[in-house]
């Protein structure tokens, strides 16, 4: 699978730095699983973190800090007791199709054969998908440690429009299956799209099939019309 739309440099740098809020971070992690190019950029930005660490002007610890830490060292480090993770990069190289979770999706979610929920979602509680407009179902992905963002799983039928909305901060959308178009282009599985705060858009799903996508909003999104009323309890 080839991915066409990627997180911006700033988003990847903030991910590398650990300053991206948990909601968007979940989407970037999902994108990274299927995008070797962004994993390389991320590694380079992490190396910048290493260089900044090495260059940091040291700040002394308490005089007994080393002694106390030495006293806490466990037995000789071994790989037993750590997760059997030695072979972990395999699934990361397997591309999007190989990215799977054993966990079943939330109630009300339909996924085509061979498509699973991305692994980063496995640790998350996802509310049942509820119909909120003709052909549109939404479930909330719980990211309780991030009060500033909200994350939703959308399932949108062929030819349907994703409800029009505006938002206070950046909106991130990751396509899990299917595809959609907006004035900036066409997006398919594995793509991550960032939209600035001032964008008021209404992307349209391809005629060929249902689109399932993950969306994170920094700041509360405002949906227009009836959907805004229906979604309010979620926001």
């Amino acid at each position: 699978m080839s991915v066409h739309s990627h997180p911006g440099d700033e988003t990847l740098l903030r991910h590398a730095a650990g300053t991206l809020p948990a909601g968007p971070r979940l989407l970037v992690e999902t994108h990274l699983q299927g995008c070797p190019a962004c994993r390389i950029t991320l590694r380079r930005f992490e190396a910048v973190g290493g260089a900044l660490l090495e260059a940091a002007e040291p700040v002394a610890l308490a005089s007994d800090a080393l002694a106390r830490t030495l006293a806490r060292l466990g037995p000789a480090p071994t790989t037993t007791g750590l997760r059997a993770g030695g072979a972990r990069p395999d699934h990361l190289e397997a591309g999007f199709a190989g990215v799977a979770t054993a966990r079943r999706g939330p109630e009300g979610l339909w996924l085509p054969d061979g498509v699973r929920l991305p692994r980063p979602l496995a640790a998350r509680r996802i509310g049942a998908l509820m119909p909120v407009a003709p052909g549109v179902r939404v479930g909330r992905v719980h990211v309780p440690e991030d009060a500033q963002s909200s994350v939703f799983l959308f399932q949108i039928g062929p030819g349907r429009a994703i409800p029009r909305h505006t938002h206070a901060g950046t909106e991130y959308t990751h396509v899990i299956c299917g595809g959609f178009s907006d004035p900036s282009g066409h997006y398919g599985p594995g793509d991550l799209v960032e939209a600035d705060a001032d964008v008021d858009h209404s992307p349209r799903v391809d005629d060929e099939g249902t689109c399932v996508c993950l969306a994170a909003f920094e700041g509360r999104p405002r949906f227009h019309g009836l959907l805004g009323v229906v979604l309010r309890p979620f926001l």
Partner: protein
Amino acid sequence: MSAAPPASGPETGADLSALIVAIARDADRDAFARLFRHFAPRVKAFLMRGGLSANAAEELAQETLLAVWRKAAYFDPARAAASTWIFTIARNLSIDLKRRERYTGTVDAEALEEAADEASGETILMSAEREARVRAALARLSEEQATIVRLSFFQEKPHSQIAQELGIPLGTAKSRVRLALSRLRTLLEDLK
């Protein structure tokens, strides 16, 4: 088998990598002590720049070095600079700390930890000898661009901080950030 390098003078990147290898192979507590003396004060400084209090940063710096002891077997000096590997451990612990502070309800902690471990597995990075070249790339940024990169790294709301520090409007800050990070990425891409 290679013992830890002799302790004399400032530690080089290769020395630091060898210390982690010595911990993994021999549970070498002297190697750990040297690594601690080099990195713990830097991790503390780094976390304080990121907004942690001195106490919290000191605590997390020790936790970071403890994690280095436990995970040393996963360090591969052919693929990672010691500084970068330790940076990613400190970063992940810092994310965990913020999560615990902001939320005390029930999440699937086991699965989260697994995800974090996988993330740190992924952060086995660029070979150690490239460390100096990453520094060289940073040195080629203009002073303003270097400031932007640092602030983008440490600030949770970098645009407003950058606008303030450079005395420029917010909109200008956004486009300068874009330019600076694009140049940084290009310089790093040249490190074949």
